[in-house]
């Protein structure tokens, strides 16, 4: 090959790089490992990660992933392909994404979905940018009960883009709707809500949607996909842009990523939506086929005038979501959500029967709820982990100092009655001794 090219060595091919820029020494990295050594090393690292019985949620949920999901993801025709630029040999992935878009539209009750974004938090930020572009206003409102990390990402994005982000605080005696009503003005592009909110509380969004629309602003709702099997979907509550994190749809926790962000909008916002979109068309012989479409919105065509810079998204995670939803099917999806809800409510009943424990908020909830402990919740959680090897939930005080007694507990179908009873027992014991750690 060197002869053909007309050079004497492979090094010569790098002659164009000025001498003084060449490294001239080996990289200071560990020497290569064989496959066997690599696996031993990685297994040892994995062993350092513990997997106690866990009731952690707070935006990442442990669900059983049906075996079929991984078997489809392992089809390397899917996972070793690039973004489907060449539609004729990418019909498999394109059709999967079309089916994904259909399912997201079905569960959210919205008109159209894109092909996925990075995660729920960045999808929310993209939605905020979209509201600003559509309304040509520059202010976005987000209340305290939206996931803290979603708000943190929003802050970063809005700060860079010069968008005014108003973070609304809880006010005693006022409803969320009243707080939002007070804050809307002629410069408000959009209002971002989360339902169920970060504390698990479910609210009817329709009333808020009406006042937001009266102000000619857009309503953005971040929703949990599995809850949509039972809850009134955003498309029927006046929401303009529905977003969320799709991790719970067949994607492992994987220390928080990769998951996928979904976004679905009302028809009139379609051409302002960021990200890839798959559309149906026909081939020269009249057969149905699928292509990436409405690309005039995107960076590779519009460059700095694009709706977003997004290019790679989370296609394989969207495929997981598609297979997962198809595996559950119409009935299974509702059954699964009902199981989660029943188990969470059983856990709530047991825990709130323990002296000193009570629900932090008196609202309907789905599979996650906040409790007040009879002492510092971080200490109690530590005690439970130490004594019973259970992660009892997310310590709310880390983001909400006024909730230092608060614990956010998620219960999914993966928890048996016995698991839940173990949790309640451990909390009861820790409540007695938990102060010791303080």
């Amino acid at each position, binding site marked *: *090959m060197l002869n053909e090219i007309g050079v004497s060595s492979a090094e010569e091919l790098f002659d164009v*790089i000025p001498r003084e820029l060449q490294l001239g020494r*080996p*990289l200071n*990295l560990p*020497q*290569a490992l064989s496959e066997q050594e*690599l696996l031993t090393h*990685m*297994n040892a690292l994995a062993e350092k*990660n513990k*997997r106690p019985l866990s009731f*952690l949620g707070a935006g990442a949920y442990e669900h059983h992933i*049906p075996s079929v999901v991984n*078997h489809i993801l392992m*089809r*390397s*025709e899917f*996972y070793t392909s*690039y*973004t489907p*630029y060449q539609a*004729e040999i990418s019909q498999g*992935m394109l059709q*999967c994404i079309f*089916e994904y*878009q259909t399912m997201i539209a079905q569960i959210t009750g919205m008109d*159209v979905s894109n092909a996925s974004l990075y*995660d729920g938090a960045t999808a929310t930020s993209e939605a905020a940018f979209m509201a600003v572009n559509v309304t040509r206003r520059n202010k976005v409102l987000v209340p305290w009960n939206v996931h803290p990390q979603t708000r*943190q*990402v929003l802050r*970063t994005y809005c*700060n860079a883009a010069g968008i005014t982000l108003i973070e609304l605080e809880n006010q005693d005696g006022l409803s969320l709707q009243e707080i939002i009503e007070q804050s809307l003005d002629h410069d408000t592009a959009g209002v971002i809500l989360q339902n169920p909110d970060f504390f698990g509380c479910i609210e009817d969004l329709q009333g808020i949607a009406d006042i937001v629309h009266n102000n000619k602003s857009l309503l953005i709702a971040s929703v949990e996909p599995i809850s949509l099997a039972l*809850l*009134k979907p955003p498309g029927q509550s006046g929401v303009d842009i529905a977003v969320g994190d799709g991790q719970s749809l067949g994607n492992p926790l*994987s220390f*928080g990523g990769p998951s996928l962000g979904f976004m679905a909008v009302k028809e009139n916002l379609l051409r302002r939506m960021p990200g890839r*979109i798959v559309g149906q068309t026909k*081939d*020269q012989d009249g*057969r*149905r086929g699928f*292509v990436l479409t409405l690309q005039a919105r995107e960076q590779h065509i*519009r*460059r*700095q005038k*694009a709706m977003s*810079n997004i290019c*790679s998204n989370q*296609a*394989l*995670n969207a495929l997981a979501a598609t297979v997962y939803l198809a595996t559950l*099917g*119409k*009935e*299974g*999806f509702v059954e699964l959500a009902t*199981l989660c809800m029943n188990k969470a409510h059983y856990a709530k009943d047991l825990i709130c029967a323990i002296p000193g424990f009570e629900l932090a908020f008196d609202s*309907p909830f789905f599979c996650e709820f906040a409790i007040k402990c009879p002492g510092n919740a971080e200490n109690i959680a530590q005690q439970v982990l130490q004594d019973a090897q259970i992660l009892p939930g997310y310590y709310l005080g880390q983001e909400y100092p006024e909730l230092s007694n608060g614990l956010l507990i998620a219960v999914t179908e993966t928890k*048996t009655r016995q698991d839940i009873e173990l949790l309640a027992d451990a909390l009861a014991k820790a409540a007695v001794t938990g102060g010791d750690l303080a």
Partner: protein
Amino acid sequence: MKTNQDFPLIFERSRAGRRALDLPQNDVPTTGKTLPEHLRRQEAAALPEVSQVDLIRHFTALSRRNFGVDNGFYPLGSCTMKYNPKINEDIARIPGFAQIHPEQPPETVQGALQVIYELGRMLSEITAMDEFTLQPAAGAHGELTGLMLIKAYHLHNGDSHKTEVLVPDSAHGTNPASAAMAGFDVVEVKSNMAGLVDLEDLAKKVSDNTAALMLTNPNTLGLFEKDVKEIADIVHAKGGLLYYDGANLNAIMGICRPGDMGFDVVHLNLHKTFSTPHGGGGPGSGPVGVKKPLIPYLPVPTVKQEGQTYTFDYNRPLSIGRVKSFYGNFGVYLKAYAYILAMGPDGLRQASQDAVLNANYLLHQLKECYEVPYPDRCMHEFVISATTQKEYGASALDLAKRLLDFGFHPPTIYFPLIVKEALMIEPTETESKETLDAFVAVMAAIAKEAEETPQALQNAPHHATVSRLDETTAARHPVLKWTGED
């Protein structure tokens, strides 16, 4: 392969009452009304109802209508479609990695934190940067993050007038789009006749308002920007920073490093250079590395080592904040970590050397039958032009579609924008000479076809699962979901 029937959608396979999975019985007492009626969904989502075997056959059949690196040669320029080692797929699925919750106390996830810490150190060594964040989920996300860091840096130094980002006309579309998203104005810098940044034009465009220059090196023409030091000096002299788009790092691993060239901020595409599969469009991973002065602005949290333990550092008052939930695409960068350990320092260097060798070999062979706008040697990729073929009536698109008939994924087409009828070819290091020769033979045959029977190209592909698809109608009358009507 072809039939006249539409391939069914999963919804069209649905029959009421069929199921693919049994769920556990409810084992807890239920207390009745848990959800008030007005909050309830009235009608179940119309998800498909299929048996497990029908479901598996559906998605297996769809996979056979898709083309990945495991199916054949994939010389998609600037995408580095190298082989994805299988062991890394197994590693990412080890329960100790796949089943840990991001909110677990740090003492229960020391292995994960060690991966984050060590991968950051390794990427720093490879790029000559001082610290990395692994939070960005993809290359474009890395660009956005890097530009936010640059903005925060200038603002903290009181340089609020630095509002412009310079982008060469050969740059990826994400560069200007990311700059705009980060609130910058974009100023385009021309390429010269040799395909490199035009230093005169750069000198004209750079000013006190310059926040940064974004540069891909080697650039998208596959040419090394040999004047990079001078470019860096020009930008630095005005107080601007130099941003490295890492899409093409595969050409230079262990040979030269962005940090030594004068770059201040770097993003990498682990799904390109570091062998993590692209997943049909993601998930990717786009870590960002910076030189010391920019470390304080990195996203929270970072991971630090204290003795034998690893902890999160949230106490970073100048940080731009978070750019993604949790800690980025852990399951993806875990594979890149494994790849670097498997390759070692010599293996990485060899990979780049072979990538450049393969590209030069292809370039040399294709020169015979295609126009090559920049005839010099290339790095890991190069651009040819189908202008001659276009005169016969076969465009770059037609050529690409014809390649499908021969079992090759086509190169990137119509990019970079500065080359007419561009085909951008990146073979990567994992391809054998035999594969390259087979590709050359087909490209030569297609060039001949273009001259003799261009209509054969215009109607290509002839042997794919579908014939040429109508993209215009798709955009004009968008059908974006199945509605049950045809």
